[in-house]
Protein backbone atom coordinates (compact mmCIF):
# COMPACT_ATOMS: atom_id res chain seq x y z
CA UNK A 1 0.00 0.00 0.00
CA UNK A 2 1.08 3.59 -0.70
CA UNK A 3 2.21 6.00 1.99
CA UNK A 4 -0.71 8.23 3.02
CA UNK A 5 -0.38 11.88 1.97
CA UNK A 6 -2.45 13.02 4.96
CA UNK A 7 -2.48 11.22 8.28
CA UNK A 8 -4.76 12.27 11.09
CA UNK A 9 -3.82 10.74 14.41
CA UNK A 10 -5.98 10.91 17.55
CA UNK A 11 -7.02 14.44 16.67
CA UNK A 12 -8.93 16.17 19.45
CA UNK A 13 -10.29 19.64 18.78
CA UNK A 14 -12.11 21.89 21.21
CA UNK A 15 -13.69 25.33 21.36
CA UNK A 16 -13.10 26.37 24.95
CA UNK A 17 -13.75 23.23 27.03
CA UNK A 18 -16.20 21.87 24.52
CA UNK A 19 -14.65 19.03 22.53
CA UNK A 20 -15.95 18.97 18.98
CA UNK A 21 -13.63 16.28 17.63
CA UNK A 22 -12.90 13.51 20.10
CA UNK A 23 -10.08 11.51 18.61
CA UNK A 24 -10.11 11.32 14.82
CA UNK A 25 -7.95 8.77 12.99
CA UNK A 26 -7.90 8.85 9.22
CA UNK A 27 -5.40 8.15 6.45
CA UNK A 28 -5.81 9.77 3.05
CA UNK A 29 -3.84 8.45 0.09
CA UNK A 30 -2.36 10.38 -2.83
CA UNK A 31 -4.64 10.77 -5.84
CA UNK A 32 -7.79 9.66 -4.07
CA UNK A 33 -10.91 11.64 -3.49
CA UNK A 34 -12.34 11.25 -0.03
CA UNK A 35 -15.58 12.65 1.29
CA UNK A 36 -16.02 13.39 4.96
CA UNK A 37 -19.71 13.04 5.58
CA UNK A 38 -21.63 14.21 8.60
CA UNK A 39 -24.56 16.28 9.67
CA UNK A 40 -24.45 20.02 10.00
CA UNK A 41 -22.62 21.09 13.11
CA UNK A 42 -20.84 17.79 13.68
CA UNK A 43 -17.42 19.38 13.21
CA UNK A 44 -16.62 18.96 9.52
CA UNK A 45 -15.37 22.49 9.00
CA UNK A 46 -13.45 22.22 12.24
CA UNK A 47 -11.73 19.10 10.95
CA UNK A 48 -10.78 20.85 7.70
CA UNK A 49 -9.42 23.85 9.58
CA UNK A 50 -7.15 21.52 11.52
CA UNK A 51 -6.04 19.70 8.41
CA UNK A 52 -4.90 22.92 6.78
CA UNK A 53 -3.29 24.35 9.89
CA UNK A 54 -5.77 27.18 10.52
CA UNK A 55 -6.40 25.82 14.00
CA UNK A 56 -4.20 24.08 16.55
CA UNK A 57 -5.38 20.71 17.84
CA UNK A 58 -5.95 20.23 21.54
CA UNK A 59 -4.09 16.96 21.18
CA UNK A 60 -3.14 14.59 18.42
CA UNK A 61 -1.72 15.62 15.07
CA UNK A 62 -2.27 16.05 11.37
CA UNK A 63 0.63 14.99 9.16
CA UNK A 64 0.85 16.17 5.59
CA UNK A 65 3.43 14.16 3.66
CA UNK A 66 4.75 12.90 6.96
CA UNK A 67 5.22 16.34 8.55
CA UNK A 68 3.13 17.42 11.54
CA UNK A 69 1.42 20.61 10.39
CA UNK A 70 0.54 21.72 13.92
CA UNK A 71 4.14 21.81 15.11
CA UNK A 72 5.63 23.54 12.06
CA UNK A 73 6.72 27.14 12.26
CA UNK A 74 4.94 29.61 10.04
CA UNK A 75 7.48 29.53 7.23
CA UNK A 76 7.42 25.75 6.96
CA UNK A 77 3.66 25.69 7.06
CA UNK A 78 3.42 28.31 4.32
CA UNK A 79 5.61 26.16 2.09
CA UNK A 80 3.17 23.27 2.57
CA UNK A 81 0.18 25.55 2.03
CA UNK A 82 1.53 26.74 -1.32
CA UNK A 83 0.93 23.20 -2.56
CA UNK A 84 -2.61 22.95 -1.19
CA UNK A 85 -5.79 24.73 -2.17
CA UNK A 86 -8.90 25.41 -0.14
CA UNK A 87 -12.40 26.11 -1.35
CA UNK A 88 -14.34 27.69 1.51
CA UNK A 89 -17.98 27.13 2.27
CA UNK A 90 -18.68 30.80 1.52
CA UNK A 91 -16.09 30.88 -1.32
CA UNK A 92 -14.26 33.59 0.71
CA UNK A 93 -13.30 35.62 -2.35
CA UNK A 94 -11.58 38.91 -1.61
CA UNK A 95 -14.51 41.25 -2.07
CA UNK A 96 -12.38 44.29 -2.74
CA UNK A 97 -10.70 42.68 -5.75
CA UNK A 98 -12.01 41.64 -9.15
CA UNK A 99 -12.45 37.94 -9.87
CA UNK A 100 -9.35 38.02 -12.06
CA UNK A 101 -7.23 39.61 -9.33
CA UNK A 102 -8.52 37.05 -6.85
CA UNK A 103 -7.24 34.22 -9.02
CA UNK A 104 -4.01 36.01 -9.86
CA UNK A 105 -3.32 36.97 -6.25
CA UNK A 106 -1.53 33.78 -5.10
CA UNK A 107 0.55 33.81 -8.28
CA UNK A 108 1.56 37.44 -7.78
CA UNK A 109 2.53 36.83 -4.17
CA UNK A 110 4.27 33.48 -4.51
CA UNK A 111 5.94 33.57 -7.92
CA UNK A 112 8.24 35.92 -9.83
CA UNK A 113 6.31 35.45 -13.05
CA UNK A 114 5.80 38.33 -15.47
CA UNK A 115 2.43 40.07 -15.23
CA UNK A 116 1.64 38.92 -18.79
CA UNK A 117 2.24 35.27 -17.86
CA UNK A 118 0.16 35.62 -14.72
CA UNK A 119 -2.66 37.09 -16.73
CA UNK A 120 -2.59 34.14 -19.12
CA UNK A 121 -2.55 31.63 -16.26
CA UNK A 122 -5.40 33.47 -14.56
CA UNK A 123 -7.49 33.30 -17.73
CA UNK A 124 -6.73 29.58 -18.09
CA UNK A 125 -7.89 28.87 -14.55
CA UNK A 126 -11.08 30.84 -15.04
CA UNK A 127 -11.63 28.96 -18.28
CA UNK A 128 -11.23 25.63 -16.45
CA UNK A 129 -14.11 26.46 -14.13
CA UNK A 130 -16.26 27.92 -16.90
CA UNK A 131 -15.88 31.57 -15.98
CA UNK A 132 -13.92 32.88 -18.94
CA UNK A 133 -14.67 36.52 -19.55
CA UNK A 134 -15.59 37.24 -15.93
CA UNK A 135 -12.17 38.51 -14.83
CA UNK A 136 -13.33 42.11 -14.47
CA UNK A 137 -16.37 41.29 -12.36
CA UNK A 138 -16.42 41.98 -8.63
CA UNK A 139 -17.43 39.01 -6.43
CA UNK A 140 -20.61 40.88 -5.44
CA UNK A 141 -21.71 40.76 -9.07
CA UNK A 142 -21.59 36.94 -9.24
CA UNK A 143 -24.23 34.38 -8.31
CA UNK A 144 -23.56 31.87 -5.53
CA UNK A 145 -22.56 29.13 -7.93
CA UNK A 146 -20.24 31.43 -9.87
CA UNK A 147 -18.60 32.58 -6.65
CA UNK A 148 -17.83 28.98 -5.74
CA UNK A 149 -16.39 28.42 -9.21
CA UNK A 150 -14.22 31.51 -8.85
CA UNK A 151 -13.13 30.29 -5.43
CA UNK A 152 -12.24 26.99 -7.02
CA UNK A 153 -10.20 28.73 -9.72
CA UNK A 154 -8.32 30.62 -7.01
CA UNK A 155 -7.71 27.42 -5.05
CA UNK A 156 -6.28 25.86 -8.21
CA UNK A 157 -4.08 28.85 -9.06
CA UNK A 158 -0.89 27.33 -7.69
CA UNK A 159 -1.60 23.85 -9.14
CA UNK A 160 -2.09 22.25 -5.72
CA UNK A 161 -1.44 18.61 -4.94
CA UNK A 162 -4.18 18.57 -2.35
CA UNK A 163 -7.51 20.35 -2.65
CA UNK A 164 -9.78 20.84 0.36
CA UNK A 165 -13.43 21.68 -0.27
CA UNK A 166 -15.86 22.72 2.43
CA UNK A 167 -19.42 21.86 1.36
CA UNK A 168 -18.90 22.76 -2.31
CA UNK A 169 -22.53 22.36 -3.33
CA UNK A 170 -24.25 23.52 -0.14
CA UNK A 171 -26.60 26.43 -0.65
CA UNK A 172 -26.77 25.95 -4.42
CA UNK A 173 -29.72 24.61 -6.37
CA UNK A 174 -29.42 20.89 -7.19
CA UNK A 175 -28.45 21.38 -10.82
CA UNK A 176 -25.78 24.01 -10.20
CA UNK A 177 -24.56 22.01 -7.20
CA UNK A 178 -24.24 18.81 -9.18
CA UNK A 179 -22.45 20.78 -11.90
CA UNK A 180 -19.91 21.99 -9.39
CA UNK A 181 -19.43 18.49 -7.96
CA UNK A 182 -18.87 17.12 -11.45
CA UNK A 183 -16.41 19.89 -12.19
CA UNK A 184 -14.41 19.10 -9.06
CA UNK A 185 -14.38 15.42 -9.94
CA UNK A 186 -13.24 16.14 -13.51
CA UNK A 187 -10.47 18.44 -12.35
CA UNK A 188 -9.32 15.90 -9.80
CA UNK A 189 -8.95 13.25 -12.49
CA UNK A 190 -7.33 15.66 -14.94
CA UNK A 191 -4.70 16.93 -12.51
CA UNK A 192 -4.42 13.81 -10.37
CA UNK A 193 -5.04 15.79 -7.20
CA UNK A 194 -5.85 14.44 -3.78
CA UNK A 195 -9.22 15.81 -2.79
CA UNK A 196 -10.79 16.07 0.63
CA UNK A 197 -14.43 17.12 0.43
CA UNK A 198 -16.51 17.83 3.46
CA UNK A 199 -20.24 17.63 2.97
CA UNK A 200 -23.59 16.65 4.41
CA UNK A 201 -25.13 15.87 1.04
CA UNK A 202 -25.21 12.29 -0.19
CA UNK A 203 -25.64 13.35 -3.83
CA UNK A 204 -22.29 15.18 -3.65
CA UNK A 205 -20.60 12.17 -2.17
CA UNK A 206 -21.73 9.83 -4.90
CA UNK A 207 -20.38 12.15 -7.59
CA UNK A 208 -17.11 13.16 -5.98
CA UNK A 209 -15.80 10.49 -3.70
CA UNK A 210 -13.80 7.29 -4.08
CA UNK A 211 -14.06 6.73 -0.35
CA UNK A 212 -16.33 8.02 2.35
CA UNK A 213 -15.53 8.71 5.98
CA UNK A 214 -18.52 9.16 8.24
CA UNK A 215 -18.14 11.64 11.04
CA UNK A 216 -20.50 11.26 13.95
CA UNK A 217 -20.36 12.86 17.40
CA UNK A 218 -16.71 13.76 17.07
CA UNK A 219 -15.51 10.36 15.89
CA UNK A 220 -15.10 8.59 12.58
CA UNK A 221 -17.86 6.01 12.55
CA UNK A 222 -16.93 4.21 9.36
CA UNK A 223 -14.60 4.52 6.38
CA UNK A 224 -14.93 2.81 3.04
CA UNK A 225 -16.36 2.88 -0.45
CA UNK A 226 -20.02 3.52 -0.96
CA UNK A 227 -20.81 -0.20 -1.25
CA UNK A 228 -18.83 -1.04 1.85
CA UNK A 229 -20.73 1.55 3.83
CA UNK A 230 -24.12 0.40 2.55
CA UNK A 231 -23.36 -3.01 4.05
CA UNK A 232 -21.94 -1.58 7.25
CA UNK A 233 -23.18 -3.28 10.43
CA UNK A 234 -23.73 -0.01 12.33
CA UNK A 235 -27.37 1.08 11.81
CA UNK A 236 -26.43 4.75 12.11
CA UNK A 237 -24.36 4.52 8.92
CA UNK A 238 -27.24 3.11 6.94
CA UNK A 239 -29.55 5.68 8.47
CA UNK A 240 -27.45 8.53 7.17
CA UNK A 241 -26.91 7.00 3.76
CA UNK A 242 -30.63 6.44 3.35
CA UNK A 243 -31.41 9.91 4.69
CA UNK A 244 -33.74 8.68 7.40
CA UNK A 245 -34.76 11.18 10.04
CA UNK A 246 -33.61 10.78 13.60
CA UNK A 247 -36.15 9.34 16.01
CA UNK A 248 -37.06 12.18 18.28
CA UNK A 249 -36.97 10.15 21.48
CA UNK A 250 -34.99 11.66 24.28
CA UNK A 251 -34.88 10.79 27.94
CA UNK A 252 -35.62 13.48 30.49
CA UNK A 253 -32.02 13.97 31.56
CA UNK A 254 -30.62 14.58 28.14
CA UNK A 255 -33.55 16.84 27.32
CA UNK A 256 -32.77 18.92 30.38
CA UNK A 257 -29.13 19.05 29.39
CA UNK A 258 -30.05 20.19 25.91
CA UNK A 259 -32.16 23.08 27.08
CA UNK A 260 -29.59 24.03 29.70
CA UNK A 261 -27.04 24.26 26.90
CA UNK A 262 -24.67 21.62 28.26
CA UNK A 263 -23.28 19.31 25.66
CA UNK A 264 -21.90 16.39 27.59
Amino acid sequence: MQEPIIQIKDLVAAYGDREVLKGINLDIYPGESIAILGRSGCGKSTLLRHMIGLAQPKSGEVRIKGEDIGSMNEEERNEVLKKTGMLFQSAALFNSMTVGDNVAFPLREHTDLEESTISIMMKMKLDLVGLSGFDDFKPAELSGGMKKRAGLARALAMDPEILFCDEPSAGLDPIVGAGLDNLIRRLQKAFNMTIVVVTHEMESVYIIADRIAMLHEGRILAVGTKDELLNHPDPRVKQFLNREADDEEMDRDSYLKTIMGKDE
Partner: protein
Amino acid sequence: MTEIANKLLGNIGRSTLDVLQQLRGVRSLTAEAGYWMFIAPFRSQKLKWKNTIEQMVKIGFNSMPIVLLIAFFVGLIIAMQSAYQLERFGTTIYVANLVAVSLTRELAPLLTAIIVTGRSGSAITAEIGTMKVSEEVDALQTMGLNPVRFLVVPRLLAIMIMLPCLTVIADLVGIFGGYVLAMGTLDLTSVRYIDQTISALTFRDLSSGLIKSVFFAFIIGMNGCFQGLSVRGGAEGVGKSTTRSVVVSIFLIILADVFFTFLFFSTF
Protein backbone atom coordinates in the same frame (compact mmCIF):
# COMPACT_ATOMS: atom_id res chain seq x y z
CA MET B 1 -27.03 40.97 49.82
CA THR B 2 -24.11 38.61 49.56
CA GLU B 3 -25.53 37.45 46.29
CA ILE B 4 -25.37 40.94 44.86
CA ALA B 5 -21.85 41.39 46.19
CA ASN B 6 -20.85 38.08 44.64
CA LYS B 7 -22.31 39.05 41.31
CA LEU B 8 -20.60 42.42 41.41
CA LEU B 9 -17.22 40.93 42.28
CA GLY B 10 -17.71 38.28 39.64
CA ASN B 11 -18.39 40.90 37.01
CA ILE B 12 -15.40 42.97 38.05
CA GLY B 13 -13.19 39.89 37.93
CA ARG B 14 -14.49 38.85 34.53
CA SER B 15 -13.99 42.29 33.00
CA THR B 16 -10.49 42.48 34.43
CA LEU B 17 -9.61 39.13 32.90
CA ASP B 18 -11.18 40.29 29.66
CA VAL B 19 -9.10 43.44 29.56
CA LEU B 20 -5.94 41.51 30.44
CA GLN B 21 -6.59 39.06 27.64
CA GLN B 22 -7.16 41.90 25.19
CA LEU B 23 -3.91 43.51 26.30
CA ARG B 24 -2.07 40.25 25.66
CA GLY B 25 -3.67 40.11 22.22
CA VAL B 26 -2.62 43.67 21.41
CA ARG B 27 0.91 42.97 22.61
CA SER B 28 1.34 39.95 20.40
CA LEU B 29 -0.22 41.73 17.42
CA THR B 30 2.20 44.63 17.98
CA ALA B 31 5.13 42.24 18.10
CA GLU B 32 4.02 40.56 14.90
CA ALA B 33 3.41 43.86 13.11
CA GLY B 34 6.85 45.01 14.28
CA TYR B 35 8.40 41.89 12.81
CA TRP B 36 6.75 42.39 9.42
CA MET B 37 7.65 46.10 9.42
CA PHE B 38 11.24 46.08 10.58
CA ILE B 39 12.69 42.56 10.32
CA ALA B 40 10.98 40.73 7.47
CA PRO B 41 11.90 43.34 4.82
CA PHE B 42 15.53 42.43 5.42
CA ARG B 43 14.70 38.77 4.87
CA SER B 44 13.50 39.42 1.33
CA GLN B 45 9.85 39.66 2.34
CA LYS B 46 9.09 43.15 1.18
CA LEU B 47 6.68 45.61 2.65
CA LYS B 48 3.44 45.91 0.72
CA TRP B 49 4.01 49.47 -0.49
CA LYS B 50 1.22 49.41 -3.00
CA ASN B 51 -1.37 48.54 -0.34
CA THR B 52 0.22 51.05 2.03
CA ILE B 53 -0.10 53.88 -0.48
CA GLU B 54 -3.70 52.91 -1.19
CA GLN B 55 -4.36 53.11 2.55
CA MET B 56 -2.52 56.44 2.80
CA VAL B 57 -4.88 57.88 0.23
CA LYS B 58 -7.92 56.42 1.96
CA ILE B 59 -6.91 57.32 5.50
CA GLY B 60 -5.00 60.52 4.99
CA PHE B 61 -5.83 62.24 1.78
CA ASN B 62 -9.56 61.66 1.98
CA SER B 63 -9.69 63.01 5.54
CA MET B 64 -8.21 66.31 4.43
CA PRO B 65 -11.44 68.30 3.76
CA ILE B 66 -12.99 67.59 7.14
CA VAL B 67 -9.70 68.21 8.98
CA LEU B 68 -9.24 71.51 7.15
CA LEU B 69 -12.74 72.64 7.93
CA ILE B 70 -12.65 71.77 11.62
CA ALA B 71 -9.15 73.13 12.17
CA PHE B 72 -10.12 76.44 10.57
CA PHE B 73 -13.14 76.90 12.79
CA VAL B 74 -11.34 75.80 15.93
CA GLY B 75 -8.63 78.37 15.21
CA LEU B 76 -11.34 80.95 14.81
CA ILE B 77 -13.03 79.95 18.06
CA ILE B 78 -9.84 80.04 20.12
CA ALA B 79 -9.05 83.49 18.73
CA MET B 80 -12.50 84.69 19.73
CA GLN B 81 -12.38 83.22 23.22
CA SER B 82 -8.90 84.59 23.89
CA ALA B 83 -9.80 87.99 22.54
CA TYR B 84 -12.75 88.10 24.92
CA GLN B 85 -10.36 87.74 27.86
CA LEU B 86 -7.44 89.73 26.54
CA GLU B 87 -9.48 92.77 25.49
CA ARG B 88 -9.98 93.59 29.15
CA PHE B 89 -6.24 94.03 29.52
CA GLY B 90 -5.81 95.72 26.16
CA THR B 91 -3.40 93.05 25.04
CA THR B 92 -5.26 91.51 22.12
CA ILE B 93 -1.96 90.98 20.31
CA TYR B 94 -1.47 87.92 22.54
CA VAL B 95 -4.35 86.27 20.73
CA ALA B 96 -1.67 85.27 18.23
CA ASN B 97 0.31 83.49 20.95
CA LEU B 98 -2.65 81.67 22.39
CA VAL B 99 -3.89 80.49 19.04
CA ALA B 100 -0.50 79.31 17.81
CA VAL B 101 0.61 77.61 21.00
CA SER B 102 -2.63 75.92 21.97
CA LEU B 103 -3.13 74.62 18.45
CA THR B 104 0.33 73.23 17.83
CA ARG B 105 0.85 71.79 21.29
CA GLU B 106 -2.59 70.43 21.94
CA LEU B 107 -5.62 71.03 19.83
CA ALA B 108 -4.41 70.21 16.34
CA PRO B 109 -2.97 66.78 17.25
CA LEU B 110 -5.94 65.89 19.46
CA LEU B 111 -8.67 67.02 17.10
CA THR B 112 -7.05 65.45 14.07
CA ALA B 113 -6.64 62.20 15.95
CA ILE B 114 -10.27 62.19 17.00
CA ILE B 115 -11.49 62.98 13.49
CA VAL B 116 -9.31 60.24 12.02
CA THR B 117 -10.53 57.79 14.68
CA GLY B 118 -14.10 58.43 13.65
CA ARG B 119 -13.39 58.36 9.97
CA SER B 120 -10.61 55.84 9.49
CA GLY B 121 -10.23 53.91 12.74
CA SER B 122 -13.81 52.76 12.40
CA ALA B 123 -13.31 51.96 8.71
CA ILE B 124 -10.24 49.85 9.50
CA THR B 125 -12.16 47.80 12.05
CA ALA B 126 -15.19 47.40 9.82
CA GLU B 127 -13.10 46.37 6.81
CA ILE B 128 -10.93 43.86 8.58
CA GLY B 129 -13.89 42.62 10.63
CA THR B 130 -15.93 42.01 7.49
CA MET B 131 -13.02 40.15 5.93
CA LYS B 132 -12.79 38.10 9.09
CA VAL B 133 -16.44 37.03 9.13
CA SER B 134 -16.48 36.29 5.40
CA GLU B 135 -13.45 33.99 5.90
CA GLU B 136 -11.24 36.20 3.72
CA VAL B 137 -8.65 36.38 6.49
CA ASP B 138 -8.63 32.58 6.70
CA ALA B 139 -8.35 32.39 2.92
CA LEU B 140 -5.21 34.52 3.03
CA GLN B 141 -3.76 32.19 5.62
CA THR B 142 -4.55 29.04 3.64
CA MET B 143 -2.68 30.56 0.70
CA GLY B 144 0.38 30.71 2.92
CA LEU B 145 0.16 34.48 3.29
CA ASN B 146 0.31 36.25 6.61
CA PRO B 147 -2.76 38.41 7.42
CA VAL B 148 -0.75 40.76 9.64
CA ARG B 149 1.64 41.48 6.80
CA PHE B 150 -1.12 42.01 4.26
CA LEU B 151 -3.81 43.71 6.31
CA VAL B 152 -2.38 45.20 9.50
CA VAL B 153 1.01 46.56 8.47
CA PRO B 154 -0.15 48.63 5.47
CA ARG B 155 -2.88 50.29 7.54
CA LEU B 156 -0.65 50.90 10.54
CA LEU B 157 2.15 52.38 8.42
CA ALA B 158 -0.29 54.50 6.44
CA ILE B 159 -1.90 56.01 9.49
CA MET B 160 1.43 56.62 11.24
CA ILE B 161 2.69 58.51 8.20
CA MET B 162 -0.50 60.41 7.45
CA LEU B 163 -1.66 61.53 10.89
CA PRO B 164 1.39 63.75 11.57
CA CYS B 165 1.00 65.22 8.07
CA LEU B 166 -2.64 65.99 8.72
CA THR B 167 -1.65 67.49 12.07
CA VAL B 168 0.79 69.89 10.40
CA ILE B 169 -1.93 70.94 8.00
CA ALA B 170 -4.34 71.42 10.91
CA ASP B 171 -1.70 73.57 12.66
CA LEU B 172 -1.39 75.85 9.64
CA VAL B 173 -5.08 76.09 8.86
CA GLY B 174 -6.02 76.62 12.51
CA ILE B 175 -3.53 79.47 12.79
CA PHE B 176 -4.98 80.91 9.60
CA GLY B 177 -8.43 80.71 11.17
CA GLY B 178 -7.18 82.74 14.13
CA TYR B 179 -5.61 85.22 11.74
CA VAL B 180 -8.86 85.66 9.83
CA LEU B 181 -10.72 86.44 13.04
CA ALA B 182 -8.05 88.83 14.25
CA MET B 183 -8.05 90.72 10.97
CA GLY B 184 -11.82 90.89 10.89
CA THR B 185 -12.59 92.01 14.42
CA LEU B 186 -9.44 93.08 16.23
CA ASP B 187 -7.52 96.27 15.73
CA LEU B 188 -4.28 94.61 14.58
CA THR B 189 -2.24 94.79 11.43
CA SER B 190 -1.52 91.74 9.40
CA VAL B 191 2.27 92.09 9.68
CA ARG B 192 2.15 92.49 13.42
CA TYR B 193 -0.08 89.43 13.92
CA ILE B 194 2.13 87.24 11.74
CA ASP B 195 5.31 88.47 13.44
CA GLN B 196 3.77 87.81 16.83
CA THR B 197 2.74 84.28 15.79
CA ILE B 198 6.23 83.46 14.55
CA SER B 199 7.95 84.76 17.63
CA ALA B 200 5.50 82.92 19.88
CA LEU B 201 6.08 79.54 18.35
CA THR B 202 9.07 77.45 19.28
CA PHE B 203 10.34 74.27 17.73
CA ARG B 204 9.35 72.52 20.95
CA ASP B 205 5.69 73.42 20.49
CA LEU B 206 5.61 71.96 17.01
CA SER B 207 7.64 68.86 17.76
CA SER B 208 5.80 67.94 20.96
CA GLY B 209 2.53 68.08 19.01
CA LEU B 210 3.91 65.91 16.25
CA ILE B 211 5.40 63.34 18.61
CA LYS B 212 2.00 63.02 20.23
CA SER B 213 0.31 62.54 16.89
CA VAL B 214 2.61 59.64 16.00
CA PHE B 215 1.55 57.84 19.18
CA PHE B 216 -2.09 58.69 18.58
CA ALA B 217 -1.75 57.19 15.11
CA PHE B 218 -0.29 54.02 16.57
CA ILE B 219 -3.24 53.77 18.97
CA ILE B 220 -5.83 54.28 16.24
CA GLY B 221 -4.20 51.87 13.79
CA MET B 222 -3.33 49.14 16.23
CA ASN B 223 -6.63 49.22 18.08
CA GLY B 224 -8.56 49.43 14.81
CA CYS B 225 -6.82 46.36 13.39
CA PHE B 226 -6.99 44.42 16.65
CA GLN B 227 -10.71 45.01 17.07
CA GLY B 228 -11.25 44.03 13.45
CA LEU B 229 -9.33 40.78 13.80
CA SER B 230 -11.19 39.87 16.99
CA VAL B 231 -14.64 40.17 15.44
CA ARG B 232 -16.84 37.18 16.17
CA GLY B 233 -20.17 36.26 14.76
CA GLY B 234 -21.39 37.95 11.62
CA ALA B 235 -22.53 41.44 10.76
CA GLU B 236 -23.65 42.17 14.30
CA GLY B 237 -20.15 41.41 15.54
CA VAL B 238 -18.68 43.83 13.02
CA GLY B 239 -20.98 46.59 14.25
CA LYS B 240 -20.14 45.96 17.90
CA SER B 241 -16.41 45.85 17.29
CA THR B 242 -16.52 49.03 15.22
CA THR B 243 -18.23 50.91 18.02
CA ARG B 244 -15.80 49.49 20.56
CA SER B 245 -12.89 50.41 18.32
CA VAL B 246 -13.89 54.09 18.26
CA VAL B 247 -14.66 54.32 21.97
CA VAL B 248 -11.48 52.57 23.06
CA SER B 249 -9.31 54.58 20.66
CA ILE B 250 -10.65 57.91 21.87
CA PHE B 251 -10.24 56.88 25.49
CA LEU B 252 -6.66 55.72 24.92
CA ILE B 253 -5.83 58.86 22.94
CA ILE B 254 -6.95 61.05 25.84
CA LEU B 255 -4.97 58.94 28.29
CA ALA B 256 -1.88 59.17 26.12
CA ASP B 257 -2.44 62.89 25.77
CA VAL B 258 -2.46 63.36 29.53
CA PHE B 259 0.70 61.32 29.81
CA PHE B 260 2.61 63.17 27.08
CA THR B 261 1.42 66.59 28.07
CA PHE B 262 2.64 65.91 31.57
CA LEU B 263 5.93 64.59 30.22
CA PHE B 264 6.52 67.59 27.95
CA PHE B 265 5.33 70.02 30.62
CA SER B 266 7.79 68.71 33.17
CA THR B 267 10.77 68.22 30.84
CA PHE B 268 10.57 71.11 28.39
